[in-house]
């Protein structure tokens, strides 16, 4: 066997080992109920922002503390705490992926990272667009510049 073949095998074995060890570090997707029943475990929760309850955020008190309610497809709700400030696009998001741990003692989800799913590149956000058209047509706002 050539030296180069031995190195080849070693490197490929290394790459496979690295990928397997990567798989062991991965987290899991859970529902809110799943997150609650595994307090302290790092999970990803697909949820939506409960827009009926105002965000708990005050720049002047603590610009890093954000609290909000989230619910998932089963309708289960939980309080979410995020300590890195206001999340961009949170209000316009259609869906959220909350990454963090459920804190059973404080009865809230300590969120480390939030992914917001918004209308973006390659995406035809037809619902919002339709709303816009209807709004414009209904209000007779034909110049298209929405005024708020």
């Amino acid at each position, binding site marked *: 066997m*050539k*030296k*180069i073949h031995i*190195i*080849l095998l070693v*490197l*490929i074995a290394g*790459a496979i080992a*690295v*990928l397997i060890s*990567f*798989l062991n*570090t*991965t*987290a*899991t*997707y859970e529902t809110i109920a799943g997150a609650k029943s595994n307090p302290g475990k*790092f*999970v*990803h929760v697909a949820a939506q922002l409960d827009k009926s309850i105002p965000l708990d955020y005050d*720049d*002047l*008190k*603590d*610009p*890093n503390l954000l609290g909000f309610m989230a619910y998932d497809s089963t309708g289960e709700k939980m309080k979410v705490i995020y*300590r*890195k*400030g*206001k999340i*961009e696009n*949170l*209000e*316009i998001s259609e869906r959220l*992926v909350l*990454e963090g741990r459920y804190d059973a003692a404080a009865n809230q989800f300590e969120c*480390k990272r939030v*992914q917001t799913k918004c*209308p*973006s*590149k*390659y*995406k*035809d956000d*037809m619902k*919002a*667009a*339709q709303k*816009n*058209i*209807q*709004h*414009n*047509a209904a209000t007779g706002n*034909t*110049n*298209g*510049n*929405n005024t*708020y």
Partner: protein
Amino acid sequence: MDYTGENLLPGRFGHFFIVLSLVASLVATFAYFMATRTKPEQDAGYWKRLGRFAFITECISVFAIFGILFYIIYNHLFEYKYAWQHSSLSLEFKYLLACFWEGQEGSFLLWSIWHCVLGLVLIKTSRKWEAPVMTVVSFAQVWLATMIAGIYVFGHNIGSNPFLLLRDSGVLDGAAVLHIDNDITQPLRQDYMLSIRDGNDLNPLLQNYWMVIHPPVLFLGFASTIVPFAFAVAGLWTKNFADWVKQAIPWTLFATAVLGVGIMMGGMWAYESLTFGGYWAWDPVENASLVPWLILVSGLHTLLIYKHSGHSLRSTYLFLVLAFIFVLYSTFLTRSGILGETSVHAFTDLGMNKQLFLFMYSFVWLTGIIGAKNTRSVLGVLAIATLLALLSNYVNIAWLGSLALLTGIGFTIYQIQTQVPTVQKEEATSSREFWMFIGSLVFFLSAIVIIGQTSLPVFNKLFSIQKAPSEDPEFAYNNIQIYVAVIVAILTAVTQYLKYKDTASSYFWKKIIIPTVITAILSVALFAMYDITYTRKGPMFQGAIWLAVVCSIYAMVANISYIWLGLKGSLKLSGGSIAHFGFGMVLFAILISSSNKEILSRNTSGIFVPLGEGSKENPGENLTLVKGIKTDMGKYWVTYESDSMHPKKQQWYYNIHFQRKDGKEDFILQPNAFVNYKGNAGLMANPSSRHYLDHDVFTYITSLPDPEQQKKDTTAFKTNTLKPGDSLFYSNGFMILEDVVAKTDLPEDLFGKEGSLHEASVKIFSKNGTSYTKVPRLANAKGELMAIPDTTLAESLVLQLQKVNPDKSIELGVKETDAVMKYVTLKAYKFPYIILLWLGVAITAAGIFISMIRRIRLNRLKAEKLEI
């Protein structure tokens, strides 16, 4: 029915050219295919001429489509869905191109245009390789043409037509007011266009000049990976296994440089206009473009190995084929919506997944089919490919499709292994090719590991598992790739000092000692003068960073020295060394800028306490600045001075004044944000940064006061809970609760036995520099609570002590008679030496181009010699 206000002519022309481009690319593929199949003794001239004619027709069509679509966007013809969806009247001219490639049709078109340009150059330059290579390029053009075809075949919708009319797109179907009698079951009003006066606009995040220039460069990079691929396929197909290498080298160099620059321009866009605070986040979309580049670099190096030593031809085939396959895989990943949850870019299912899959599938199998030994095995492999495709279409098992793909790659490897000749002699460990090959292999495997990690959502789909990225997804990549960086940097430094075939060890050691010593000195000097600390991930990772920093310095020093030590200062020959020097600089800059990134807007309580000491327990990354108030931010004083609004849009600009406390820097940053854009609540922020030679200061807005909330609050008392020492902002300054005192010796006839009187002394600092001390009081007289407010007329401020708690904290009511308080909350970072990153990229690209020009010259000289 005719609708008023529509201009249908451009769309009709557009349709015509789309169909023409599809037909022409089919004809070109077929003609070039026949030209390749024609035996040398027969005349292939007819097929070749037909192929050229068809390809040039195709090019004209694609350019026409591009021109017409641009005409539609430029003239704001909102009756076309594409213009309506991606642009608006208020969009600046410079962004019209950006909205062109915001949509997927436009980006496919861009890709197709670059294929046209590359194809024309190939027709001009590739001589006897023209027919097979152009067969492959034309075949890809067929697929790209179907992506924008928008035609129905047997009930299947093929592609998405950029000239689709808004009224045909379904967008208007639900809008009752646009229909006759306000009834959606009725047809549209004849004058419906009156209500569609403006478009939906370009996503604000894409309204950035980098978005105008980075996609064309990136897509040129993507597009140019097809050329080395096509040469490799052509080699297997024509059984002329090695002759193509000479021509493929400059093309591979070109693709490497352009794709690399395109990726880093994407990084610059992310850095300048996204708010994840950096140029690279290991996002699937970024990885998807990085992986083909890494494989292409591997292919480039094995090409050179083959050219100089005759080794590694088989790996060259594999790498060049896979580089293009991974471009297609990336396209599939990022546009099929399969990434779903893991990407910050929201890509959703376009309903074209099957088409995208087939595009990838046909090219995965192409090498295995067309490169088969003889006609019989060609048909055999074709039959297997078709069978597997049908099977995965009709049997609904998720992993079958990927198995079919892997089988296709298996056949590619089989054709390479069984046919491509190889050198039996083993490479010497003292040879350049040995270590170059190891480097290529490490690069290739690192690409496979990255794409494996990125494909996690694909594995979830295939095996119905529920794996999510780990707690720190970036570290999952960094922790692996840092060791790749170490290995590659060392190889980059050392390998040039080895000669092809064999190196005398005395020569090698004599030469390498010089850069090694210089590196040692520079590293010691660097660590002595500059602190690189990154302890968050433990000592192991910190050590790896230090090692990688030293290795990247080694790569820079060794390659720069080699220009004199090995090449005697010849610039013509030193393209490789320059590129490797630049690459070392890129690594160095990545390491320094990422590990020494500083958060400037560190804050303790949210409110700046100028006199008292704030607690350091939970330092957040956001800082609130009240308009006009100079705020402490580490090394800087920052002031939110003023704001202004875009004349046409809901876009606000904030002037944030930075002053270094030692007086060395004084500048204004102007981050901006779209507020309540298009009726959506919330803000979309664009960062702003200040560039210095040794660092960048980078800031963006994270939150703004809600205007609705503000109106409500100004008229009533706003209650705040404070402890002595705490501070509080109001619209014109801030105040500090200095002390709370309970008065004793109260007259019993007024207060009763249990009565009390509390006094809170509050010091008010106005932003014009004056300060006042005010004392609101709270009395408990005979069981009745009575607040005695204090006012400052000059500040229109009323303070009311509402409650005193046993722990001396109080509730203080604040009323402002007029004035709305203005503030912004922002994040600010300092990135050291980011300029080295861009410089390194530029140097790498320059080095690659020098090599490319040299290779082209060499090829030309050889061709001329042959002709003589």
